[in-house]
């Protein structure tokens, strides 16, 4: 099965994700323009890439969540297909309701581009099977709206369900809100839906997929996905 990367007007990490999937990880990948209404045949993974869809002029991701391609992505997810939203893509996923919560402006009210340490909280998802539980990985962030927010009771439910997959952390393995570069509640950097087939995260694994770029920890994501896709193809 292959990967489909949706390009919204203003997406700017689409080519980066395609590079990480195709050139680095040898996963067959196809770009899909947001005005399409169906996904390519044999799509196992849909990626909503980072960027500034529609300039982020309304709420981040709100316009893209109403693009013609979105119903097809929704249906793909409901059938158990994988959906990965990175940065702006995560914002789009929360706007579509495929993932709970909202991404608010960073607590500093400034754009932050920086390397971050993350703790892998779950390894039983199709996106993280190649990691070790509790592993500390380094992915960069680059966003202005990355403060993950949920009302308290829903946040408790999210935690109780074990939906938090990545948490901002320190090198010694402790994780939590005090390590959030952006003020994200409970240090949440990435979450899955209840089914575990839709992942949204603010950090960019595609920017950490080659040693020459400073980290290849992101390969864990692509390798996990590849294994899952190959398992489904058999």
């Amino acid at each position, binding site marked *: 099965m292959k990967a489909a990367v949706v390009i919204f*007007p*203003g997406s*700017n*990490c689409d*080519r*980066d994700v395609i*590079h*990480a999937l195709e*050139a680095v990880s040898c996963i067959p990948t196809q770009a899909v*323009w947001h*005005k399409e209404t169906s996904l390519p045949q044999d799509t196992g993974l849909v990626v909503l890439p*980072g*960027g*500034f869809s*529609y*300039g*982020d*002029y309304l709420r981040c991701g709100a316009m893209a969540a109403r693009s013609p391609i979105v119903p097809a992505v929704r249906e793909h997810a409901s059938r158990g297909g994988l959906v990965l939203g990175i940065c702006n893509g995560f914002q789009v996923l929360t706007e579509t309701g495929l993932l709970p919560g909202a991404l608010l402006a960073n607590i500093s009210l*400034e*754009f*932050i*581009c*920086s390397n971050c340490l993350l703790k892998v909280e779950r390894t039983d998802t199709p996106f993280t099977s190649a990691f070790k539980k509790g592993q500390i990985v380094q992915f*960069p962030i*680059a966003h*202005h709206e990355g403060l993950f927010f949920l009302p308290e009771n829903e946040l408790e439910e999210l935690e109780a369900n074990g939906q938090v997959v990545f948490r901002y952390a320190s090198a010694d393995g402790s994780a939590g809100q005090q390590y959030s570069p952006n003020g994200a509640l409970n240090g949440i950097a990435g979450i899955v839906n209840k089914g575990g087939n839709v992942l949204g995260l603010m950090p*960019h694994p*595609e*920017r950490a*997929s*080659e040693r*020459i*770029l*400073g980290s290849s920890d992101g390969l864990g994501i692509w390798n996990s996905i590849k294994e899952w896709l190959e398992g489904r193809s058999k």
Partner: protein
Amino acid sequence: MDHRKAGLLDSEYEIICRELGREPNEAELRIFGVMWSEHCSYKSSKPLLGLFPKEGPAVLKGVGENAGVVDAGDGWGLAFKVESHNHPSAVEPYQGAATGVGGIIRDILAMGARPMASLDGLFFGNPDSRKTIFLSNGIVKGVGGYGNCVGVPTVGGKTFYDARYEDNPLLNAFCMGLVNAESIVSSQTAEPGNLVVLLGSKTGRDGIGGAAFASVELGEDTKASRPQVQIGDPFVEKLLIEACLEALENSLVTSMQDMGAAGITSSASEIAAKSGVGMILDLDKVPLREADMSAWEIALSESQERMLLIVLPEKLELVLSLGEKWDLDCAVIGKTVEGDRFILEKGGSVAVDLPASLIGGGCPEIRWPAITPANLANRQTFELENEILPSDLAESLLKLIGSPSLREKTWITRQYDSMVQVNTIQGPGAPLSLVRIKENGNIAAITMEALPWACQLDPFRGGYETMARSLRPLWVAGARHLGMTNCLNFPSPENPEQFWEFSEAVKGLAECCVDLGCPVVSGNVSLYNESAGLSILPTPLVCSVGLISSGESPLLPGNWKEGDILYLVGMDNAAIPASHFQVTCMGMLKGLPVPPSPEMERDFKERAILTAGKNVADSAIPILGGGLGIALCKEAISSGLGAEIQLGTPTLPAVSLFGEGGARALYAVPSVKAFEFLRIWKGFPVRQVGNVRGESLRLPRSTPLPIETLLKAWRGV
């Protein structure tokens, strides 16, 4: 309308009347006022720019296009240019800076290149003044706001503070893009019978006369100039980039031009003049943001995010559908014809009818008188023996590393996306930026350098040293230089002493380029950076680009290993004059910077490149601002290791440690490789200055400085 009000000299107006055989009408007069302004015509600087060497084996496209292109290997080219947006940033910092970034990106796009890396040069006044805080915050947010959204990483830059930039901050924006060498777009390829298509944003009243505004001193009430500053829309720019690249990929356009200063007029007349065709444009066809715009307003509007495409009639359908795909306005606004007429029609009648070649090429050069400044001798008077130098080296070092221009700039760089496009090997905060080229595995190396203090004391030496200093980090990392671009920021050329400084600085730059074989492939001149009697320092800014071949690893700083031997290569004659030490620790700016030494530079270059290629050093850093002391500090901080330093030089310790200038670098070499390292540098001044050891920097006869202490001083906490 009076021609003087349009900004034209009497002599210029006479030429226009003579060439036309009549008086120009109002619209035509306004067009000449803008197109013959300093900003568009380079009339004051042209004779000087002729000094720059423009040819070189790596040059694929040189000066004269929107940007220069150099050979990046395997059929790929790097298009790059640096440009100022000083006046707009002084008036409306966020938008001024944002549109500066947007403008230079379109220059690169106009070459057919995909923009892949930006750098920004920032020059601010007193760091603690409310004005500087306001301007610097706005400018930094503007650079980030635009660059982050448009998806071009800001991978480096330069930040410099001096009170003389208080009212005239500088923003110099550099961009580099990658282009298939066979599909470089030229503005010389239009032919009669082509269609002229406007793609991108609608045209409004913003930025009208911006070029003319950039060609005079800033008024005291800068708020009054706000309407002349354009408003940027990075989202539309992103769509425009993708649409234009898709059009080029499918061979849909014959020629292309970005719309910057003087909008439709300059982009269209430039293509017409360079291609040797005439052009008839119907201004009624231009998509407008507001109704009732007059012909000259449409012709000169500097609304952002627009490109002018020259299209064959049979390709029009596809171009229009591309506009539709990317939700961009796309309109045929005219056609090219035989001849040299540049005709603008509105409401069915001719509003402008001029020879295309006269608009962009007719402005006569001005040779301003140059006089050696009366206070030059005084500026250059400095006797080291007569000065009492601060004696505590550790204290001076801490003061220096916490000084405004040398301290950590994370507050700036973390607001920039420096990693998008997944090519950034070395981002902001290093002596150079490194960007890998996925298409062929080579690595592009970029530096940005400016030395206003040295240029103030001796503009020739300052210019020479600026150029050399922009190249040294490339060599130390193992890159061979391909070419340079420059932005010449100066005050009014009408003041003979200031024009002398301008001339000398350009001569210094040019001589260094000739000596070291570095072609100048593009550039920009920004004059009149002064207001209310306060002029900026002479600020020629240089960006040099080099290449490291695939398979070779760059030699980077920040990688000291315990036990490494520290070698300083280069002469011991670094100068206190124009150094950060002199300004920050001695509170003065006087004397003479180091003289040029072309043989040393060439020798240094070959040995530095060899050192990187032979993999004999763990870490290397060129000696830049703040001298050896700051180089040691930065290496210690980024390596997390200390060192024991023995200077043992014939000169004063403060001079060895804090003097600046000349080809010098600090290498950390593992002892097993010392022999091979020394063999490479045999016959060049090289001296062991210490060893990497422990967790403190120990200068001779000084209190040890723990890394933590250095870090705190650097971060200003």
